[in-house]
C-alpha cells in the first residue's frame, strides 16, 4: 500500500528503513484506518474515490500517497461531481479534508456534498439489526405489530455516523447533514493574501507555491508526514483541487500554445507528488485538459500523475443524439493506471467505458448496445446501431494505431 511509513506512524519498522513513502502492507503494523483497505493486488493501502465502480476500474481504489488526475468534461459538470463524491467519502470515513479552488468557494462545495444513503450505513453499523432487517426493512418499518406505539416516532439519527465501510452510495438530491462534517481545510485563491511579490516569479507560480505551502502546512502540522510523534493521525488526509491549470489560477497553458509559464503546473505536480509520497494523504485534482493548447503539456501532466481518467460528457456534443449512447451521460477514458510496488499494473479488461448518473448512483459500466426490446425496430436502425458500434470501438480503442494493422 502506498501508505507511507514514516518514523512516527510505523515506529520500529525497519523493513524499508528509509522512512519514506510506499511500503508493503504488513498485517498489524498499521493502526487500522477507517475507510481504507489493502489492495488485493499489491498490498497498497487504498481509499475509495466515493464511486465504487470507479474504484473497481482503477484497481480497487486510490492508493494512499498517490494522485488521481481527472480530466474535466467540457462543462466540468461530472468532474466537479466526482470531486464532491471523493470529499463526501472522506467526510463519512472520518478523514480530514483539504479543498482548494480558484472559482468556487470551498466552503460552498463542502456544504453541498451529497448525502450518503444512510439506512445502508445504519445497517452496516449495527450487525444485529442488519440481520434482522435484511429483506424486511420496509415491512418492519411500515407496520409494527408489537411495538406499534413507536411506529410514528421520529427515527433516531445516530449522530455523527462514521462508517468504516469502503465506498458508499450517495443521494444527490439531499445534501450531507450538517452534523457530519470532517475536519476541513480550505484554500480559496481569491481570499488568499498575495505574498510579498518576489522578483521574477510569475503570478501563477506564486499561486501554486502558496497552495503547495498550504498543503504542506496541513500535512506537517497535523502530523501526516510523521514528523511529529505526538500527533499520530489515525486517519488519512484527502486533498481535492479543482480546475488546476485554468485561467483563474493565473495559468496561461489554456490560452496559449506556447505559454510563458509552461513549467509552473508540472513543477507544482512534481512537488505535490513528493509531498503525497511521504505522507498519509491522497489527492484528486481536476484539470481542464481539453482546454490545454499544447498537447505536450497534457502528456507531461499525465506522466506526473499516478492515475489518470478522462471524462467526456455528451452534453452539447453530437453523441447525445446517437442511439448507441442513449443510456449514458458520457464516456470515461482510463489513460493511466499506476504501477505501484510492482512491475505490472491492474489494467481493466475493457477500455470502452461509459458512465451514467442517477439520483442515487454514479455508475461506470462497460459500454454495450442497449437491448433491442421492441419488435418493430426496423432493419435500418439496427444497421445504424451496428455502424455506430464500429465507430465506437475505433474511437475508444486503447491505442490509436489503426485497426487494419494487427500484430498477430
Amino acid at each position, binding site marked *: 500500500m502506498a501508505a507511507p511509513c514514516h518514523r512516527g506512524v510505523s515506529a520500529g519498522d525497519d523493513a*524499508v528503513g528509509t522512512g519514506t513513502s510506499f511500503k508493503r502492507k504488513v498485517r498489524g503494523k498499521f493502526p487500522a484506518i477507517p475507510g481504507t483497505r489493502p489492495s488485493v493486488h499489491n498490498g497498497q493501502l487504498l481509499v475509495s474515490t466515493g464511486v465504487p465502480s470507479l474504484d473497481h476500474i482503477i484497481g480497487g481504489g486510490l492508493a494512499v500517497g498517490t494522485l488521481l488526475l481527472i480530466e474535466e468534461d467540457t462543462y466540468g459538470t461530472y468532474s466537479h461531481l466526482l470531486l464532491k463524491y471523493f470529499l463526501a467519502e472522506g467526510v463519512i470515513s472520518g478523514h480530514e479534508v483539504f479543498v482548494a479552488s480558484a472559482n468556487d468557494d470551498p466552503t460552498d462545495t463542502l456544504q453541498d456534498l451529497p448525502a450518503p444513503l444512510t439506512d445502508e450505513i445504519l445497517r452496516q453499523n449495527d450487525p444485529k439489526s442488519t440481520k434482522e432487517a435484511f429483506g424486511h426493512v420496509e415491512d418492519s418499518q411500515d407496520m409494527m405489530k408489537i411495538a406499534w406505539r413507536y411506529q410514528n416516532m421520529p427515527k433516531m439519527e445516530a449522530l455523527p455516523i462514521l462508517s468504516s465501510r469502503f465506498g458508499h452510495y450517495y443521494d444527490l438530491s439531499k445534501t450531507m447533514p450538517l452534523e457530519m462534517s470532517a475536519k476541513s481545510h480550505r484554500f480559496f485563491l481569491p481570499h488568499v493574501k498575495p505574498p510579498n511579490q518576489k522578483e521574477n516569479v510569475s503570478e501563477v507560480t506564486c499561486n501554486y507555491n502558496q497552495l503547495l505551502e498550504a498543503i504542506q502546512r496541513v500535512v506537517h502540522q497535523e502530523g501526516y508526514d510523521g514528523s511529529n510523534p505526538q500527533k499520530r493521525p489515525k486517519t488519512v488526509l484527502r486533498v481535492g483541487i479543482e480546475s488546476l491549470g485554468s485561467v483563474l489560477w493565473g495559468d496561461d497553458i489554456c490560452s496559449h500554445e506556447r505559454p510563458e509559464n509552461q513549467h509552473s503546473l508540472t513543477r507544482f505536480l512534481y512537488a505535490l507528488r513528493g*509531498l503525497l509520497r511521504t505522507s498519509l494523504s491522497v489527492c484528486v485534482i481536476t484539470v481542464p485538459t481539453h482546454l490545454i493548447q499544447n498537447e505536450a503539456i497534457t502528456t507531461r501532466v499525465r506522466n506526473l500523475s499516478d492515475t489518470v481518467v478522462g471524462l467526456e460528457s455528451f452534453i452539447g456534443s453530437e453523441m447525445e443524439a446517437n442511439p448507441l449512447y442513449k443510456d449514458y451521460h458520457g464516456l470515461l477514458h482510463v489513460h493511466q493506471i499506476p504501477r505501484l510496488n510492482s512491475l505490472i499494473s491492474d489494467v481493466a479488461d475493457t477500455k470502452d467505458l461509459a458512465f451514467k448518473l442517477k439520483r442515487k448512483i454514479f455508475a461506470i459500466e462497460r459500454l454495450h448496445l442497449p437491448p433491442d426490446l421492441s419488435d418493430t425496430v426496423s432493419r435500418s436502425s439496427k444497421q445504424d446501431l451496428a455502424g455506430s458500434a464500429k465507430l465506437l470501438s475505433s474511437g475508444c480503442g486503447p491505442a490509436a494505431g489503426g485497426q487494419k494493422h494487427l500484430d498477430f
Partner: protein
Amino acid sequence: MFPELNSLLGAGTDTVERGKFTLLCDSKTDGSFLVHHFLSYYLRAGCRVCFVALVQSFSHYSIVAQKLGVNLSSAKDEGQLVFLEGLRSYTDLLFGDNPEAEVTNPLCFLRAGSDLKPLYSFVSAALAPSAGQSWKCPVLILDDVSVLLSLGVPPLQLLDFMHYCRATVCTQYQGNVVCLVHGAEESGDEEKELLRRSLSHQSQVILWAEGLSSGFCKEVHGQLKIFRGAVSSGKKRGQTQPEIYQYKIQDKHVTFFARGLSAAVL
C-alpha cells in the same frame, strides 16, 4: 533482473561490459521494467551503482527489486548503491528550512535556474573510485531524465549534463550509463524528442519498448526493439537492423518471445 533479456543482450553477471551508454525509450507503454532490470542486474553483478530516481520513491524501487531478488536497503547500507530520491530532494528543497542543506541538495539547480553541475557533482562523487572497495565498475542509472524537462530544465542543459556523465562515468571511470526517456514520439513534445534523438546518437545500445500498434492485449504487453552499434567503429560492426521481440510482463519476471509466438497463441 530478467535472465531472458540478459541473453538477448548477451550479458551475464560474471563479466560486465564496460564503457557503455544504454538508452531506454518507450512509446505508448511504460518501459520502467527495463530500469528495474538494469538496476537489479548491475547490483547482482557486483557493480557500484548510483541510481538517480526522479519518478518514484525509494520503497517502490525497493519492493520491486525484492521481487527480482535484490535487496536495495542492504546494498545501500553496504555502500554499493547510492540512491538519489528526486521526489524527496525536491520537497526538501521547497520546504526545507535549512539553508545549508539547500546548498548541498543535488537538485538545487532547480531553484537557482542554473546548469546541472550540482547534480553532476553528486553523481561523479558517488561513483568516484576510492581505495579499498571491491565493486566491479561504476554504473549510473537515471529514471527518467525527461522529468527534468517538466521541471523546467532546458534540453540543452540536460544534454550537457548527460555529456558530462558520459565523459566521466563511461570514459574516465570505464563504467556504464543507463538512462530512460519516457514517452517518446508522442504528443509532439519537441523538447523530449530532441533529448531522445540526441541521446540516441550517443548511445551504443538502444532498447525501445513500444505498445502494440493494434492496441491493448492481455497476453502481449508490447514489443522491444534492440538497436545495437549505433556507434563506434572498430568494435564489432553492429547489426544495423533492430531486433524485435514481444514481451509479457509478469509479477516477478518478463518473458520475451519472437513476434507472434506468444504462449497464448501457440
